[in-house]
């Protein structure tokens, strides 16, 4: 398959089951909501070493937030419910509770609840106040700038993590420009995050390493500087490869995000140095979700 001179490989991205949640952070203005959200979703690019994958889903208007202030929706993905709950709580406690004027609310409903502010309330040292409003339990925790308002719990849902595609370009600036265009479009799709810095990862990994202590290492088949030194997947004109990783609530959400992302890349086309779109997988043996690029773009 070729779109605008860009070859779409007959391959697929392989993704895994994860647990996910969404939280809504509000603040006095969007700037401070974004600061809190940035802190909460920081150091959360990959479960390999961060414990979770997190990102900002979108900004919310005051009409969309529970307390009528500007807000940001963040999503956190982890391999299991326990890990997710731990990550959510520590990040909420260290990054949102501490952020000026912030408030924190559940962003997703589910039968499975995980603590949001339920345990953060103890920071109030006995001065915290519970309020049940419209059937939902909130905690008012006295802090130095006033009160930290937080919902007690949020929902936990099953999700999909690890959807991806690779952008193969003739130069590094062209690969980055294509990825930026893709991310801009993908951020318009609800229920997905692209957890890597700016949504783009330049150090895609393969499973395993020559070093026994490492369970992931550089994806040498897609490293342009190793074209002559390893079993490469790159043709001579490829000088840079970048990857976009997508976590989403459902396979369909990731499908949509991949479609608009790849389309944005293809719109730049061969004229802008984009040669191929590929994807990372493990032979289909590890992840139950397969995203076939050509099917997505059909």
């Amino acid at each position: 398959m070729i779109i605008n001179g860009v070859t779409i490989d007959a391959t697929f991205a392989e993704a895994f089951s994860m647990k996910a949640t969404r939280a809504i952070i509000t603040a006095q203005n969007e700037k401070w909501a974004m600061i809190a959200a940035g802190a909460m979703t920081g150091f959360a690019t990959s479960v390999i070493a961060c414990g979770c994958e997190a990102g900002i889903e979108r900004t919310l208007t005051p009409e969309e937030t529970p307390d009528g202030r500007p807000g940001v929706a963040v999503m956190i993905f982890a391999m299991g419910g326990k890990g997710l709950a731990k990550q959510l709580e520590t990040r909420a406690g260290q990054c949102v509770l501490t952020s000026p004027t912030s408030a924190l609310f559940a962003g997703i409903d589910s039968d499975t609840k995980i603590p949001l502010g339920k345990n953060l309330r103890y920071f109030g040292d006995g001065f915290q106040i519970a309020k049940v409003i419209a059937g939902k339990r909130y905690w008012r925790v006295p802090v130095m700038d006033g009160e930290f308002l937080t919902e007690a719990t949020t929902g936990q849902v099953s999700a999909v993590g690890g959807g991806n595609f690779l952008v193969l370009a003739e130069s590094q600036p062209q690969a980055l420009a294509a990825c930026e265009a893709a991310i801009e479009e993908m951020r318009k799709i609800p229920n997905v995050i692209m957890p890597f810095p700016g949504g783009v990862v330049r150090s895609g990994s393969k499973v395993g390493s020559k070093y026994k202590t490492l369970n992931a290492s550089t994806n040498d088949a897609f490293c342009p500087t190793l074209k002559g030194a390893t079993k490469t997947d790159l043709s001579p004109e490829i000088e840079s490869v970048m990857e976009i990783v997508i976590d989403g609530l459902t396979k369909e959400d990731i499908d949509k995000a991949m479609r608009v992302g790849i389309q944005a890349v293809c719109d730049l086309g061969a004229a802008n140095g984009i040669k191929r779109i590929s994807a990372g997988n493990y032979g289909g043996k590890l992840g139950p979700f397969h995203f076939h690029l050509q099917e997505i773009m059909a």
Partner: protein
Amino acid sequence: MSALTFTLKTRPAQRVDMSPLVCQHLQGMEPAEIAAIGLQSGKCKLRVDELFNISGFDTQTIVIKNSFEKLDFIGKELDGGSIMVEGDAGAYLAMGMKSGEIKISGNAGLYAGCEMKKGYLEVSGNVGDFLGGALPGNKMGMKGGLILVKGNAGERVGDHLRRGTILIEGNAGDYCGSRMTAGTIAVMGQTGRYLGYAMRRGTLLLWNAPILSASFNDCGTHTLAFLPMLFKAFASLNSKFADSAAAFNRVQRYAGDMAEMGRGEILVKK
């Protein structure tokens, strides 16, 4: 299906225990069976059809017409469905209500909504003492749900209130919020003496400056984020509380009762 309607024929001299006439008890019963239910009135048990004309079939929607102040225990432990009372109600209206909705067009007596667990009680007139309170000797009053009073409330509103919300458009008597352990009481009108007497936790939300006991300490003026959410939750009510003009988020906060646990608060509109 039309609402099951009980129209009072005559006003008995003695008080009447209306507790058998709740939706969950009447569900599936034939009209003849409902007519034969005995209601305690003084020493006697009166058949329902001796007191009321009965019409309609929908046992989940009950209407009591010509009601007066001696009909006690209306909607006791109601668990789903709705009861509309046209007229006044006696004591213990909606006592221990578990879910559902009770609306009354007139006044209610003592202990309305006492020990209520969930659901919605709306009183268009006034209510007596111990609204949403605990029965004598009990330690926990209302534990959940919402009570709206459009008129005035008597003394001891929310005595031992454990959880839930009481909204009073008019005035509240003395000892409002006494011995509260949590929950919210909002009073648009005036409050009496000994406000929040021995309250441990919970919130008293006031539109007018109260007479405060010495055991409440001023914590200053604050803008509280939860208040807009609280008012938003009232937006669907048929009440002054639903009016956005009545909402505020800037309050003077008083902590107390310092003679007790001191974790309660009185918030007064600024």
